[in-house]
């Protein structure tokens, strides 16, 4: 286990210090975007389409404009005058800001009403008369590629069908050949449904353009303020918004989970409105809007796993159909359209793999949010972990044993995966063993045999996942060409206290505490003496933001590297103060001392003061450092999760009896924060496994657009999470850390699905797609009884 180098007062790595940011949150003193109130501020509300696919024949603003307090109704035609009615997406597609003629999904923004307050704006939105001509919506992605399917994007030059792109990786021929010759091949079509990022805070902005200074200030619910600033400059440069005049402020954020990475059309309209009117314009998405816009997942994966009859895995093949809605607005910063989906070969050692994917347009909301996972890792892990269990069931081998026999071994790292990743480190065997010990695997196996003899349904499910996080090395990642480094800037004041600023942006992760702990670890300045700031592009160094579990792998590394620059400078100052040569100075946390004479020493605070008051002749004064860190590789956190369930045959009710999660995220900065992250992530893992999924009807209407029908589990529905760790430091990260936030969301769903399907195995049920609801289980049981 990790051994703390610092005292609890200094609070470096490994100390479960309380979160510095919590006082303001617990006292209700956080400042969220909706708390921002600027003088003269107006409110914007969007009119949204009731239809999934329709022509707009006319928009009549008259009745809305007649309401006192309604100042403007902005349509796509108004934006077209400035060529702002379309915007590019990160993946080189195009997205409507506001439509001029065609509606492409239900609840799409039709036009915007600007009014003096929100009540009036909502009345105004209701008074706008839109004349639609509904068309037959294309909802089923499998029909999107049919001959004769309506061409959804005739606006795109050269677009002849509804395919957005085809992607493939690996050796198709060789993989097919191995599969054809294998003793055992298991196949399954696995669907990961659309799900919704249910942050407590919805999206919103306050855009404020000052016509005199020509400056635009935007308070924005964003996980990536600098990237947004650059995007606005690139998209709206032609109307005079250039990057030095743009300031993005991401204040406190109430949950992001990837849903606050994209640039949403309403942001652009609010900015345009403020630019035209010259007053601040606030837009706050309401819950109903938030629920039906933006989504994650929606992958249909045809999987084949080939093995010898003893269960040695030989090859994996997956062909995927991805439903992207009407545009590919995926919040994907990698150079690959499917992000990190090629991690789908999993934690196992075999040679042959092939993955391909066809992305299609449908009349659904665009999104492609990487909901608490590095882009498409959840889908990849679900595919391989379900298939490994299916293989175990097929050949009658214990799924834990099958995994042990196929794991990449500790000594094989760095491991080159069949689809091209270089796994940094791991000890999969030890991690699974720890999980099995903790839960009492053998005891449950016995209990299961007894229960089955009594006709009861009990299941044990395992998931041993490998994540790929920390976007990322510039060879694999960029946003509009900008490399995915991140940054830290440290200013140590003369009194030895410090201000540190970062290019990332916490949305609840606890950066104000963990970054301070990293600096405490490196410099010996107590974490309580270090203020951490993020989110204001005028003050923070350029960075790419927080998602993909990248903050610790990138900005955390930058913090360590910047601190080491300071430590090196401090050594020179200490040598000067102690009148010895630099080579004679040694460091222990917080203190420089003379080799062999530890009583002769200077603290980091002494040295900081001297950097402003008594520095060596010729040295640049001050005690500040900045570092931009471009990681050499991604990090590969991993874990072993085991779940025990009981299923009631009469009702299909599922009871999660135990859930043990052993995570290996390398060295840990704050164990308490990591545990909190794991608990939250596991709860967001049980959500898609058992509760969540956006349902559409044939017309493209969302059927569960409220929290009454879209079930987000709470603490009451969550089982008691039992957590633990193995620690295999990342060899290439300065702190040996890997990032943890996404592992539980990625690892929990397959563990739960595997457990439920294992419980149902005696009835002959071999697969169920998530969410596995009581109704779905009951139906499956009835169907199998009839057989």
């Amino acid at each position, binding site marked *: 286990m990790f051994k703390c180098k610092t005292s609890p007062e200094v609070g470096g790595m490994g100390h479960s210090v309380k979160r510095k940011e919590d006082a303001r949150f617990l006292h209700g003193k956080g400042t969220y975007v909706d708390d921002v109130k600027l003088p003269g501020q107006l409110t914007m509300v969007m009119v949204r389409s009731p239809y999934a696919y329709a022509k707009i024949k006319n928009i009549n603003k008259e009745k809305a404009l007649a309401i006192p307090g309604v100042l403007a109704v902005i349509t796509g035609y108004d934006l077209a005058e400035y060529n702002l009615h379309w915007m590019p997406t990160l993946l080189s597609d195009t997205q409507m800001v506001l439509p001029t003629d065609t509606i492409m999904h239900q609840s799409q923004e039709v036009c915007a009403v600007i009014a003096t307050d929100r009540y009036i704006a*909502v*009345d105004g939105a*209701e008074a706008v008369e839109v004349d639609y001509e509904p068309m037959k919506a294309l909802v089923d992605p499998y029909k999107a590629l049919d001959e004769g399917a309506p061409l959804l994007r005739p606006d795109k030059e050269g677009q002849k069908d509804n395919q957005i792109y085809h992607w493939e990786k690996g050796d198709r021929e060789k993989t097919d050949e191995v599969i054809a010759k294998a003793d055992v091949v298991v196949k399954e079509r696995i669907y990961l449904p659309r799900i919704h990022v249910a942050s407590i805070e919805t999206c919103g902005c306050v855009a404020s353009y000052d016509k005199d200074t020509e400056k635009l200030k935007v308070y924005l619910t964003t996980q990536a303020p600098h990237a947004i600033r650059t995007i606005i400059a690139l998209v709206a440069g032609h109307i005079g918004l250039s990057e030095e005049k743009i300031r993005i402020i991401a204040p406190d954020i109430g949950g992001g989970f990837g849903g606050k990475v994209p640039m949403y059309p309403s942001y652009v309209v609010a900015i345009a409105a403020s630019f035209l009117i010259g007053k601040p314009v606030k837009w706050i998405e309401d*819950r*109903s809007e938030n629920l039906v816009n933006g989504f994650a997942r929606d992958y249909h994966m045809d999987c084949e796993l080939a093995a010898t009859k003893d269960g040695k895995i030989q090859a994996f093949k997956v062909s995927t159909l991805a439903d992207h809605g009407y545009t590919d607005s995926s919040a994907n910063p990698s150079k690959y359209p499917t992000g990190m989906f090629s991690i789908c070969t999993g934690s196992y050692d075999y040679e042959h793999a092939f993955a391909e994917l066809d992305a299609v347009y449908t009349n659904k909301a665009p999104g492609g949010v990487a909901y608490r996972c590095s882009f498409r890792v959840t889908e990849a892990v679900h595919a391989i972990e379900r298939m490994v269990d299916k293989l175990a069931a097929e050949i009658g081998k214990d799924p834990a044993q099958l995994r042990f026999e196929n794991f990449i071994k500790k000594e094989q790292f760095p491991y080159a995966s069949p689809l091209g990743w270089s796994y940094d480190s791991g000890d999969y065997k030890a991690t699974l063993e720890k999980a099995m010990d903790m839960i009492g695997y053998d005891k449950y196996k016995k209990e299961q045999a007894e229960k089955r003899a009594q006709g009861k349904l009990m299941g044990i499910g395992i998931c041993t996942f490998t994540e790929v996080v920390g976007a990322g090395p510039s060879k694999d990642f960029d946003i509009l060409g900008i490399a995915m480094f991140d940054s830290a800037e440290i200013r140590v004041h003369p009194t030895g206290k410090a201000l540190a600023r970062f290019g990332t942006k916490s949305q609840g992760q606890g950066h104000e505490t963990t970054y301070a702990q990293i600096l405490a670890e490196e410099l010996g300045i107590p974490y309580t003496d270090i203020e951490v700031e993020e989110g204001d592009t005028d003050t923070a160094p350029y960075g790419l933001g927080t998602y993909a579990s990248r903050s610790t792998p990138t900005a955390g590394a930058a913090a360590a590297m910047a601190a080491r620059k300071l430590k090196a400078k401090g050594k020179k100052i200490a040598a000067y103060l102690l009148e010895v040569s630099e080579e004679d100075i040694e460091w222990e946390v917080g203190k420089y001392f003379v080799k062999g004479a530890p009583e002769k020493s200077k603290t980091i605070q002494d040295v900081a003061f001297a950097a402003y008051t008594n520095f060596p002749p010729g040295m640049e004064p001050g005690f500040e450092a900045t570092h931009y860190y471009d990681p050499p590789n991604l990090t590969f956190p991993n874990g072993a999760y085991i779940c025990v369930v009981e299923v009631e045959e009469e009702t299909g009710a599922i009871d999660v009896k135990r859930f043990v999660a052993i995570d290996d995220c390398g060295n840990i900065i704050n164990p308490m924060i990591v545990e909190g992250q794991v608990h939250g992530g596991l709860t967001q893992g049980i959500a898609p496994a058992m*509760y969540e999924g956006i349902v559409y009807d044939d017309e493209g209407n969302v059927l569960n657009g409220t929290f009454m029908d879209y079930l987000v*589990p709470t603490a*009451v*529905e969550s089982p008691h999470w039992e957590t633990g760790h193995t620690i295999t430091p990342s060899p290439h990260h300065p702190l040996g850390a890997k990032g943890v936030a996404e592992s539980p969301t990625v690892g929990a769903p397959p563990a739960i699905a595997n457990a439920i399907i294992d419980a149902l195995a005696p009835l002959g049920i071999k697969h169920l797609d998530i969410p596995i609801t*009581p109704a779905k289980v009951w139906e499956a049981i009835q169907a199998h009884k009839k057989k």
Partner: protein
Amino acid sequence: MIPSNFSYHKATSIKDAIALSQTHGEEAKYMSGGHSLLPMMKLRFASPEHIIDISKIDGLSYIKEEGDFLKLGALTTQSEMEYSPLIKQKYAIFSDAIKLTADPSVRNVGTIGGNIAHGDAANDQPALMLAMRATIIAEGLNGQKSIPIDEFFHGFYMTALEPSDILIEIQVPKAKNRSGGAYHKVERKVGDYATAGVAVHVELDDSGICQEIGIGLTNVSAVPMRLDRGEDI
């Protein structure tokens, strides 16, 4: 999530409320706790032009045994019922069931009368009243009337109440010596509306033979439903 414009009227007495209702006609709606009506207004599923707030009318909040009945004042909140010693002791089916309705902050404001008058088959309380064979007392333009619970629910959000009628009291037959009941609610998430719910009330004679049974169902039909065939058995 913002309702249409409406006028707000605060009624000081039942007579005052009925007069206000008469003045504003069909565009008026009574509101007590508002926890069923306001969400519908926020979603603009309901847009009454006049809200007549009856929550401040004195004398409509009580839980008492009188004559042959347990009498529940219409403005009694669900929390008051949940924590009433009399109910806990003799009518535990109510306190057991109310615990499962929404969450404490809703129960602190939502009233028993409003819950029933709303006519929503998804609410928990109507099934309880069916099982307990309650009688609804309402006051309207022509004075008071009593409506047996079996004649109260007419359809989706529709009840036997005329537009001016105010539900003022619910009368439940007084608990017999050997009687009791339970409410079972199937819900996907705590605090949700029931996927389905069942309230059962039984009365036994001295030898332990069941003499009377009432079974009410939640959310299985457009109206709260009595399980007649089950009772016959």
